[in-house]
């Protein structure tokens, strides 16, 4: 059935699992630095096929991965099953409207290059705050606009080939600007002092190529 949600349709159109394969090592390293302990209740928003969720579950956390794309949810549940992780489930959901999730139900809400791509960024911030328990944590990884490294450059090149975005379009990359992040979480009732920032590096690793396989750039699905 054809989706009527354009964001959902966009993410279901390509096969993001091919890119995700190159993100496993950095995903695991990032999760390793989050102080995850057994039984911690974690929501991974925009989870894809589990690059962040699965390593968190391997550390003993109870993880729910939510993604807009049904094919990625299916891929995540398959990977969790293959790895014997009964404490890691994936379900469909929209980061800007997590109506299926109760208030204050997670100790940690994590979204690594996930929720930044959902429309309605103010709703996204509000929902992340709503489902996090008081004193819990939200950790986001957001690409940085106009950065000289890979992702911002892919988007810059892509933009020169794509038609202009519709009027009123808010670029997902705006989540990579500190003042925007502060503004969005302030609207969700979070004080400036409760928000901190750090610049970090994520590495895409594509293994040595087989003769018949595609090149890394052929695997890139260019999103807005």
């Amino acid at each position: 059935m054809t989706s009527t949600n354009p964001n959902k349709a966009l993410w279901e159109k390509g096969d993001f699992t091919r890119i995700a394969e190159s993100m496993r090592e950095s995903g695991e390293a990032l999760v390793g630095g989050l102080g995850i302990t057994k039984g911690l209740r974690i929501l991974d928003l925009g989870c894809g096929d589990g690059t962040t969720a699965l390593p968190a579950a391997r550390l003993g956390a109870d993880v729910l991965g939510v993604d807009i794309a049904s094919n990625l949810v299916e891929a995540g549940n398959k990977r969790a099953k293959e790895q014997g992780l009964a404490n890691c489930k994936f379900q469909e959901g929209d980061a800007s409207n997590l109506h299926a999730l109760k208030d204050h139900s997670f100790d940690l809400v994590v979204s690594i290059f996930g929720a930044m791509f959902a429309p309605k960024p103010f709703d996204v911030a509000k929902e992340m705050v709503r489902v996090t328990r008081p004193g819990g944590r939200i950790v986001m990884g957001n690409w940085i606009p106009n950065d000289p490294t890979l992702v911002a450059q892919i988007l810059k090149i892509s933009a020169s080939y794509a038609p202009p975005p519709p009027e009123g379009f808010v670029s997902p990359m705006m989540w990579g600007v500190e003042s925007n992040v502060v503004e969005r979480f302030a609207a969700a009732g979070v004080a400036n002092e409760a928000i901190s920032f750090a610049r970090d590096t994520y590495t895409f690793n594509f293994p040595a190529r087989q003769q018949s396989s595609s090149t890394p750039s052929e695997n890139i699905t260019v999103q807005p």
Partner: protein
Amino acid sequence: MNAFEAAEKNGRAGDLQKELEALFSRENKSPNRNATSIPASFLRVTVVPN
């Protein structure tokens, strides 16, 4: 419409492919010439709601 679709429509898919290939080659830090390892910077945000 994503960039690849737009480029195909305009007969420029090859140009887009070339530009991306050049970017990947430029950014590749892998010592293995057949592998690709590309770092990318991101903003890490930590929020502790009251």
